[in-house]
């Protein structure tokens, strides 16, 4: 299963990015094979508005079926769930550790957005 994480680099020992919509990149991690690919999101890092929506579209287009993030706003949540991407809200941590937690079923799927838009 492919899962997405907002990140700043392609190193799994690095911390997950704090924001979802304005993350510079997404890591799309395949849990079956422990491989990943990167999706660039720099366009949304600098978007005037609607970054969360576009980022959610990017994640949906990547084929990911789940996303792990620290915070998710209402519009992004709406797009992700419409696209069939499950949202797992988690405290930040190293990407590798979060993937392990996900695999062990230690992360819970969220039934709503956890922050208002523009929360930062």
């Amino acid at each position, binding site marked *: 299963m492919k899962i997405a994480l907002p990140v700043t680099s392609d190193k799994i020992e690095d911390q997950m990015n704090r924001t979802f919509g304005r993350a510079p990149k997404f890591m799309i991690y395949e849990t079956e094979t422990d491989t990943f690919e990167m999706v660039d999101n720099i366009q949304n890092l600098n*978007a*005037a*508005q*609607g*970054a969360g*929506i*576009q980022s*959610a*579209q990017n994640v*949906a*287009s990547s084929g990911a079926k789940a996303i792990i993030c620290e915070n998710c706003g209402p*519009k992004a949540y*709406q*797009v992700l769930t*419409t*696209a069939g991407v499950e949202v797992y809200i988690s405290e930040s941590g190293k990407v590798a550790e979060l993937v392990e937690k996900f695999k062990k079923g230690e992360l819970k799927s969220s039934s709503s957005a956890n922050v208002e838009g523009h929360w930062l």
Partner: protein
Amino acid sequence: MKLAVASGKGGTGKTTLSVAIAKSAKGKVQLLDCDVEEPNSHIFLEIKDKETKTVTVPVPVIDMEKCTHCGKCAEICEFNAIISFGGTTTMVFPDLCHSCGGCELICPEKAITEKPEEIGELTKCSVGNIKFLEGKLKIGKAMSPPIIRAVKNAAENDLLTVIDSPPGTSCPMIAAVHDADYVLLVTEPTPFGLNDLILAVDTVKDMKIPFSVAINRFDVGDDRVEKYCEAQGIEISLKIPDSRKVAVAYSKGISLDEAMPEVKADIRRFLKSIESAGRQN
């Protein structure tokens, strides 16, 4: 003559001065409250009869029967108000829409129509010599320029018009100020006042509108605003002293010109001086 009363920093006294200018002017005058996120000029006017209209903007509605999810509407939208993915899903976010109409034009299936979305209201009334217009953005709505334009479109052209502008130097301020003949930038003698005054000066210069500065509570704080104006060759056309009497009056909805009648003469002198200084159209 359209006089916009603006500032970079909020809380410097735009409304205080706008109302005082309108009330001090001789003859008929228009006062436009374009600070539509928080209009408050009305507090200082004795309003009896008013007329209120709804302000709407057109936003897209997609007929999902006709939509093939080709994504052309999402592609043309500069404001991320429409997204489309997977060839199965197209979603509209009306709050982000700037009503450009591009999506409706580009849709090959003619699946997009526009519907009016209420974003606020426009109030008109007359108080003494003042024709007063106020725009008010609906709570939860983000886009104030369409309301500001609605206020301006409802105004008469040939009257002395005082525009109480929103603070800052972003789109709402530009929408309120861009067609003014003259801008009065209100500031306070503090580092914050100066910082935001510089931003406002740069903005107004860029729009090539004649302007001068009013310093509110000029006798407190420091002299950096005055030094900046002197160095830049910017005229300081009004100075309002700090006064507890004015503050107490303000808290009761009594305007500056009533609490401190001596400002009327200064304001009239200022109005006289800009008659010929305004932008020539």
